[in-house]
């Protein structure tokens, strides 16, 4: 992994491509990231670069984080993430979107999907519903729980109703449509996980 940025989903819109066709686009707000720590194999057991973005009041920061902000000489940051860099970044260095991505790059976008609450099997697992009429009286129910006395229990992993959404989710192989480093704008073709204002991380795609 070489390229990485943290952002917040701003919302979706439509844009026109070179042929004049409408394309779906998601706008991500990417404030500059600051390098907080460089982890190495010798000291930490693995290589990583810890970065932070988004402002937060100093009062709300815990002491271990506050120490790192002081060491890197940056303002306290709200969102802290790690990524595996290829090149070296110096402590406290500012990283903008334009440093990481260019128009046409293929990226993966990760975030926490929208929570759907407690949902039934039809919405949660895409099962078919029962007949709506003819006295069926079996509309959106779960279906069979399994066989009878052999095995005599419900098999683990049986698809049942429950909490849906609000899980980590990645959409792969999206293309970058627009990058503006000064204003921190990243526009991506297609939809990405999460609500407006949700935190997302953008990486170069593993499918390349």
């Amino acid at each position: 992994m070489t390229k990485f940025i943290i952002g917040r989903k701003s919302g979706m819109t439509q844009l026109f491509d070179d042929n004049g066709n409408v394309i779906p686009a998601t706008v991500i707000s990417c404030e500059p990231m600051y390098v907080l720590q460089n982890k190495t194999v010798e000291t930490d057991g693995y290589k990583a670069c810890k970065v932070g973005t988004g402002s937060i009041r100093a009062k709300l920061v815990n002491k271990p984080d506050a120490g790192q902000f002081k060491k890197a000489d940056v303002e306290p940051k709200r969102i802290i993430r790690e990524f595996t860099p290829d090149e070296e970044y110096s402590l406290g260095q500012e990283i903008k979107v334009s440093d990481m991505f260019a128009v046409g790059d293929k990226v993966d976008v990760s975030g926490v999907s929208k929570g759907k609450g407690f949902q039934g099997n039809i919405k949660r697992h895409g099962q078919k519903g029962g007949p709506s009429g003819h006295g069926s009286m079996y509309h959106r129910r779960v279906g069979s729980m399994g066989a009878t006395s052999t095995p005599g229990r419900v098999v683990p992993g049986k698809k049942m109703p429950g909490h849906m959404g609000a899980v980590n989710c990645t959409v792969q192989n999206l293309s970058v449509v627009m990058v503006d480093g000064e204003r921190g704008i990243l526009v991506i073709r297609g939809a990405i996980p999460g609500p407006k204002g949700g935190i997302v991380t953008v990486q170069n795609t593993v499918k390349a």
Partner: protein
Amino acid sequence: MDLVKVVESENIRNQYPDVEVGDFVKAHLLIKEGAKERIQVFEGYVIARKGQGLSETITIRRVSYGIGVERILPVNSPKIDHIDVIRKGKIRRAKLYYLRDRQGKAAKITQKI
């Protein structure tokens, strides 16, 4: 600051504020045939104007050889060369979908003077 609006405002090219519902218009559309580009004119009544910002669309309806034809055009599309307003219409609805059920003289819109 709403970044979606910022991105949209930079890409908005033509708004055609004078094209209103009920107007009889001529839309000059760019058609690509191989390497050649030519202009095709589609004329008819504007029966709806939907959406806002970059995603705004207009629906133009005409009756061609007895068959109703509707085209939904994104107002900001680069495929629109320009739109001429021929007549303004006097209407009492925001959406003129009732025209679909009418034929001949009943499907006419009075001109606004």
